[in-house]
């Protein structure tokens, strides 16, 4: 039967976002709720000599003042390299030195001003390359276990080796090598970070959180409670969330502080960041220095690729330090390269530290690789698109990293770019007008970064004929509330409008790894197919018990009411075999006579009959699924099939560069994406448009200006987001190879479009002005300087 709901552009179901009734963390209040505020360091690197909180404690309305000196010395974070409130020293400007809880925001702010901190300055280091030197100031004297540290290099030796790079280099006809840099960029969620922590009298923590990893967050908070000596457990509730883009993957320090304040006061405590705090004290995407060397033979076939990355880790460690695991994906597998060497070094500095951001290391890695691809194409005298076509990935191949590619329409995407941009006519002119291209691959079928990559789902049918999908996933805006309904309807025979979604409560929802890595549609889709099949089987079995007698009763009643009605001659026994029945539009009917209105019943009537059977033998319909995909964790060598499938694509950009001002204008933009199968093409395009603009901002305007550790532009006036006025005409091309490993053929599409935008733009600008700019963003100042410096 043709699919009824999947593949169609259903309008979004989350209607209360347009009415103002959707409740975000900002909008939630609780009785007795206090306002929590954090005092941050005024120094980038200093010993804390003394903190005087006496005046703040005496202020009317202040309920708690906490510092590292009156809270448990419990380490938090991925490497356990910090405490919630700092005691011995501060290592960055965003270090949390003290926190207060007060009856309102004004009082809390006043209290912060009354706290006096004495610092003894220490030498600081802000450049990761400087920080690697032997005589650099040590950011951490000891590690989490108390063992002395000798240098600032993190104990995370990311590396991947495949083939024989030396030999391949010697055999290459053309070799290029260069170094590229990227800068800090912020996720800039429109909703700032916030949480509400409260304890019940049994010491259980209820934590209202903007996380998109509720169960990971629960784990971390449960461990924190244990470590600070509280015998309770955590329940996480997630409200509507104003964007994530990676920023809500880790449990952040302010969240532990809210727990400490709530425990101290036994009142609900809310911490809500203001915009400046969001920029200065929430972890963004880290900068890299990436050196890349590539070689190809005389026909343009890639022989080898060597990449060395240095990541400015900042003062502490969050998920930013694990992004090299995803950098490996493009570095080893973007195009067919048999010989690979990759090393990444994460270095502590006195800068702000980094988290995940859309693409998880892939944007930095693809930026580096794709510029080198253009340089090598030029060296070999081959058109950049032809060079990519020669080396394009193919379906059903295994890469040096062990990634098993299934479907792969990379060539098709490149051809789309070539045709739609009229590439041949426009490329290689260097007259201020240019075109550029960049491809990408990204995980499209989950990513086994933990031992589990699973998603739990419960489907529950009520006696109104409605279905509730109880999912462990979260929605940060990507549209899962719409596509879950479409997929459940498709899998069960219900109508999308009869499906409700319940999520965001760890007490009720089944376990899930988290809504990250573009994995949600893929995982929940599989779970829907599994649980949906059970719902159908159970419902049809239930119907086979009830339909015969219910229909017989209906027919007799009709005959009594209408003397002209003749009970038709049908074999009601057919209804007692589930194999003869089917469900569509919330109705159960006889397969052999689907149009017969007399022989169909709504699901509601059957479920109600089964509930109300009155003999103590009632039944209900609930089905559960826990889908854990067949992907692999990376082994000690950094190899393994991380995802069930990989998504590919190509972005092509046509730019005009103003020779007087250096301003780059995007005239045309083609974003060709392999999505496996679009469950909702309109929402898929929404992901492509949104991520492309975010990536274009990375390429052109976005930059956290971090000067000697301090964020100099922590506001939306000075941090330049693209606005509605920055019209970029994006032609989003959806390519649908129908992925065999994906539910309904889909692949994940949340992150990918953010990946190739900056390098495609950089390549177009290089084509337009004939000189390459090697650090982001391509601001008018840099472009102008490049034009003026040309030929020097």
């Amino acid at each position, binding site marked *: 039967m043709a699919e009824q709901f999947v593949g169609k552009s259903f*309008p979004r179901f989350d209607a209360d976002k347009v009415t*103002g009734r959707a409740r975000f963390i900002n909008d939630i209040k609780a009785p007795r709720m206090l306002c929590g505020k954090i005092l941050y360091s005024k120094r980038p690197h200093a010993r804390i000599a003394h903190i005087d909180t006496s005046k703040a404690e005496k202020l009317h309305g202040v309920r708690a003042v906490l510092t590292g000196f009156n809270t448990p010395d419990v380490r938090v974070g991925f490497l356990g390299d910090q405490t919630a409130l700092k005691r011995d020293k501060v290592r960055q400007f965003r270090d949390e030195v003290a926190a207060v809880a007060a009856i309102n925001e004004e009082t809390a702010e006043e209290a912060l001003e009354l706290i006096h901190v004495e610092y003894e300055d220490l030498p600081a280091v802000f450049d990761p390359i400087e920080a690697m030197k032997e005589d650099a100031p040590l950011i951490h004297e000891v590690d989490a276990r108390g063992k002395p540290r000798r240098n600032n290099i993190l104990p995370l030796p990311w590396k991947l080796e495949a083939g024989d790079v030396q030999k391949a280099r010697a055999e290459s006809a053309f070799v290029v090598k260069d170094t590229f840099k990227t800068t800090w960029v912020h996720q800039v*969620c429109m909703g700032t970070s916030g949480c509400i922590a409260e304890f019940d009298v049994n010491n259980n923590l209820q934590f209202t959180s903007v996380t998109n990893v509720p169960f990971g967050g629960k784990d971390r908070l449960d461990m924190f409670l244990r470590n600070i000596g509280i015998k309770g457990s955590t329940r996480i509730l997630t409200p509507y969330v*104003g964007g994530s883009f990676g920023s809500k993957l880790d449990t952040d320090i302010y969240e532990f502080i809210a727990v400490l304040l709530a425990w101290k006061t036994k009142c609900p405590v809310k911490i809500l960041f203001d915009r400046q705090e969001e920029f200065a004290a929430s972890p963004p995407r880290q900068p890299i220095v990436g050196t890349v060397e590539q070689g190809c033979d005389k026909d343009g076939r890639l022989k080898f690729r060597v990449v060395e990355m240095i990541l400015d880790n900042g003062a502490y460690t969050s998920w930013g330090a694990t992004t090299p695991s995803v950098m490996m994906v493009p570095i080893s597998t973007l195009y067919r390269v048999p010989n690979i060497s990759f090393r990444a070094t994460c270095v502590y500095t006195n800068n702000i530290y980094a988290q995940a951001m859309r693409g998880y290391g892939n944007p930095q890695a693809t930026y580096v690789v794709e510029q080198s691809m253009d340089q090598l194409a030029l060296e070999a005298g081959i058109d950049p698109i032809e060079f990519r076509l020669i080396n394009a990935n193919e379906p059903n191949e295994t890469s040096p990293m062990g990634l098993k590619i299934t479907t792969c329409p990379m060539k098709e995407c490149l051809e789309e770019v070539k045709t739609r941009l009229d590439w041949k006519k426009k490329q290689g002119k260097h007259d201020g007008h240019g075109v550029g291209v960049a491809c990408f691959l990204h995980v499209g079928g989950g990513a086994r970064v933990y031992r589990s990559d699973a998603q739990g789902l419960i489907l529950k049918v009520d006696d109104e004929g409605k279905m509730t999908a109880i999912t462990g996933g979260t929605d940060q*805006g990507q549209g899962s509330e719409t596509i879950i309904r479409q997929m459940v309807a498709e899998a069960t025979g219900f109508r999308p409008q009869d499906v409700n979604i319940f999520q965001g409560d760890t007490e009720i929802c089944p376990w899930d790894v988290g809504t990250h890595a573009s994995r949600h549609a893929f995982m929940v889709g599989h779970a829907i197919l599994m649980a949906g099949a059970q719902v159908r089987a159970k419902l049809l079995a239930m119907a086979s018990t009830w339909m015969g007698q219910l229909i017989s009763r209906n027919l007799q009643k009709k005959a009594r009411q209408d003397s002209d009605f003749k009970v038709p001659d049908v074999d009601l026994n057919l209804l007692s075999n589930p194999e003869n029945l089917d469900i569509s539009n919330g109705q159960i009917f006889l397969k052999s006579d689907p149009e017969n209105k007399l022989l169909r019943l709504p699901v509601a009537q059957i479920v109600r009959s089964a509930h109300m059977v009155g003999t103590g033998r009632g039944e209900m319909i609930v089905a559960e699924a826990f889908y854990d995909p067949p992907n692999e964790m990376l082994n000690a060598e950094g190899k393994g099939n991380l995802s069930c499938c990989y998504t590919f694509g190509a972005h092509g950009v046509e730019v005009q560069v103003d020779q007087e001002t250096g301003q780059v204008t995007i005239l045309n933009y083609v974003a060709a994406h392999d999505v496996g199968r679009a469950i909702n093409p309109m929402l898929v395009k929404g992901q492509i448009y949104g991520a492309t603009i975010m990536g274009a901002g990375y390429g052109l305007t976005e930059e956290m200006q971090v000067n000697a550790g301090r964020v100099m532009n922590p*506001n939306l006036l000075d941090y330049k987001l693209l606005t*509605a006025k920055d019209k970029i005409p994006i032609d989003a091309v959806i390519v649908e190879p129908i992925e065999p490993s994906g539910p309904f053929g889909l692949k994940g599409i949340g992150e990918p479009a953010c990946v190739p935008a900056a390098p495609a733009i950089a390549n177009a600008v290089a084509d337009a002005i004939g000189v390459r700019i090697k650090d982001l963003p391509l601001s008018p100042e840099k472009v102008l300087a490049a034009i003026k410096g040309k030929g020097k």
Partner: protein
Amino acid sequence: MRRTIRFTVNGDPVEVEVQPHWPLLRVLRDELELTGAKMGCGEGECGACTVLVDGKPINSCIYPALEAEGKQVLTIEGLVSPDNELHPIQQAFLEKAGVQCGFCTPGMIMSAKALLDMNPNPTEDEVRHALAGNFCRCTGYVQIVESVRHAAELLSKNTKRTGTGE
């Protein structure tokens, strides 16, 4: 030193005691519990707090509450009809996916309302100009622009049917 101000919100007369330095957003959200308008920056940059004052879009996070005296304020809560039907602009944002996370949406819709009240059939550039002060991090604006233009079509159909713009 509190002062009492009187104005109408979504057609209802209200009387509120305010501190002179309070912005209108604080009065709407904290005193009147109209939490549809959002605080995205508090500095008049992001537009998430946009409401209409006498039909004009303003950043309520920096608009002094005292300025609202005697004026008509329209917030996102005032757009749904008394029988709980969505306004055509709200409908259009769902149909064309002008909504993702939803945080910027109330402000975005109010800016769109101000535009369409003045200019019922805007071009793409006019829509983009009207929304220049409303930031969105999710959509890249493409489907927001499509939503506003779709809303213009829905409203013009309504006008033809009922003879009014409402």
